[in-house]
């Protein structure tokens, strides 16, 4: 029973990671860049929830909608201001700009809200007792929501026009452009979707633990990023797999008192081991380099 409980906790935190990792992986697949600022979009989502739900007293679900819109707009703005001018420049330059952007968002948030934690209590979630097991409602909500979102995303990418255009752009940008796909629009849409997913992740994180501060998204961002790389960056099922793997490893490591302090080290060691065995991640496609 204890095992099952740990597994469920792992699945729920893993699906939060998967949600963030999806943002990383979609942006990487289409814009071929690592969006380091993605983790901080989560933090912006958290603060939006704080402002709308706690300060203004809007209903939490409406606040979530507002957070999604805010994050999507923010993601698109970042792309237009910081990444678009560098399209075609060296990957190193784009990477450093993304790091700078992450730093900038954190600083701005800290300037506006200060360094103290802000409490965001949205719902009063209880626990459900099943047999001898106690499961928090948060776990179930997160699992259900993320299952729906991931399924929706997979269907969207597979069956809609825009989704298929996304696949085309990620395969070959120039050829897609020749086929009449508006690459700029697709990149914008990708950033918007990725950031909206980050808002969802922020919502789940706030449900789990109410305090919000300017580094809320930093560590989960890096972990989800690691998860995306483990699963094979650029691959949507890979991000889900990596995220859930990450969550399960984390929850099992935390239940063992001996190795609990080393959770972070274990998680990152998995990354190094997997990249040693499969340099492009578990489900990543191997790309041959051409001159």
């Amino acid at each position, binding site marked *: 029973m204890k095992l099952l409980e740990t597994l469920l906790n792992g699945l729920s935190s893993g699906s939060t990671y998967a949600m963030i990792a999806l943002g990383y992986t979609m942006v990487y697949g289409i814009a071929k860049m*690592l969006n380091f600022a993605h983790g901080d979009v989560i933090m912006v989502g958290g603060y939006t929830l704080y402002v709308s739900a706690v300060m203004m007293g809007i209903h939490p679900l409406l606040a979530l909608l507002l957070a999604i819109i805010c994050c999507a707009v923010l993601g698109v703005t970042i792309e237009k201001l*910081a990444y678009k001018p560098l399209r075609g420049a060296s990957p190193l330059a784009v*990477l450093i700009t993304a790091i700078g952007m992450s730093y900038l968002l954190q600083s701005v948030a800290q300037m506006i809200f200060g*360094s103290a934690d802000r409490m965001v209590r949205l719902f009063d979630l209880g626990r459900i007792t099943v047999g001898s097991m106690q499961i928090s409602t948060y776990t179930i909500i997160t699992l259900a929501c993320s299952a729906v979102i991931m399924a929706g995303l997979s269907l969207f990418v597979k069956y809609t026009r825009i989704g298929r255009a996304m696949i085309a752009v990620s395969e070959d940008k120039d050829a897609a452009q020749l086929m009449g796909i508006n690459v700029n629009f697709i990149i914008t849409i990708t950033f918007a979707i990725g950031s909206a997913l980050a808002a969802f992740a922020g919502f789940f994180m706030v449900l789990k633990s109410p305090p919000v501060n300017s580094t809320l998204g930093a560590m989960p961002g890096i972990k989800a990023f690691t998860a995306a790389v483990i699963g094979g960056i650029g691959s949507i099922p890979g991000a889900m797999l990596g995220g859930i793997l990450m969550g399960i490893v984390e929850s099992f490591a935390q239940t063992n008192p001996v190795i609990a302090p080393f959770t972070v080290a274990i998680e990152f060691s998995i990354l*190094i081991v997997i990249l040693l065995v499969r340099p492009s991640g578990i489900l990543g496609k191997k790309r041959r380099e051409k001159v």
Partner: protein
Amino acid sequence: MSKLKNIKWKQYIVYLVLVAVACYFGVFGLQQNLNRSTTILLEKAAVAMILAVSLNLVVGFLGELSLGHAGFMCVGAYLGAKTALALTAAMGPGNELLVLVICLLVGGVAAAACGVIIGLPALRLRGDYLAIVTLAFGEIVRSLFENLPDEMFGGSLGQQSVRYDRYQLFIIGFVLVILTLAVLQNLIRSKHGRAVTSIRDSEIAARACGINVTKYKLLVFTVSAFFAGIAGVLFSFTQNKVQPTTFDYNYSIEILVMVVLGGMGSLNGSLIAAVLITYLNEELQIVLTGDLAVLRGLLYALVMILLIIYRNAPALKGFREKWNMKRFIDRMRKHDPAKIHDDEAKWDRVPTKIMVDEVLSVDIQTSSPYTPDKRKKEED
């Protein structure tokens, strides 16, 4: 010949400046009338200079992004502090300098060993993947030192270390900066350095030319880690206690800011930026207290983003070529850019990217007598 002399002078001016600074403050230091904040600033500047220069080797010359430089420094700092404690206990007082040298070697070698370990996966990965692996490495190292049993490295409270005499340490620091600079400059100017820069410009082309990419990547990682370890040991001697929170992700970013600000691929630039940022950190800490302390991070982030966009944006290429210092200086000297000098390969500047587009875009005119006529060929 006169040109050669000119170049040599330019090459060594940075050493002269460093020696001059060390001597100027060293005289006051030996007389022990230097105030506390100045010595701390000088020590911090020395540590930052070594870190920035060694990171520049990876970022600027190898062209790979390393986000775990603070991790290597952390290894050096902890092992240096531990060795210093043991050696001081064993050898008693009076041998401080010897202890320092042994610690530097121990810390440097330990960090270099970590560099090999992290360099091995680096051989198989490139670009973005490498950045995340180095980031992961930094976090692993920090969390290991923080969470190992308290008897080993002091846990989250930090490891006790030996504070070196503050009137002398910065002189040793500057000597180390000069040594680091000498090693790195000679490495870059050597055959091996050329190989490293060629990997940066095009890995495939370098491989096609018979350069052992694996070997050079490992070499660069190891050398860079070695000097980061040395900086860590130096840092441990400036503190009474080495704390794990010092070496977090943000510290790696701060070193990266120094490298970017000074110019990727310019060692002298890194030195200047390292001193500038250390100085600004100290000054702004006094001016910006409380909530205003955030402004510092904001400033760094903005500078980094704007600088990178300005230097790299393809749309600004024309603007950059029109308004840059070199062109301005050339105009002052009435230098004609159209005239090609036979001595173009200056040793003070490692050749940067060969502009393939420019080489290939020779205008071929069909009317030119030098181009073979296509129609004629078809008739044959």
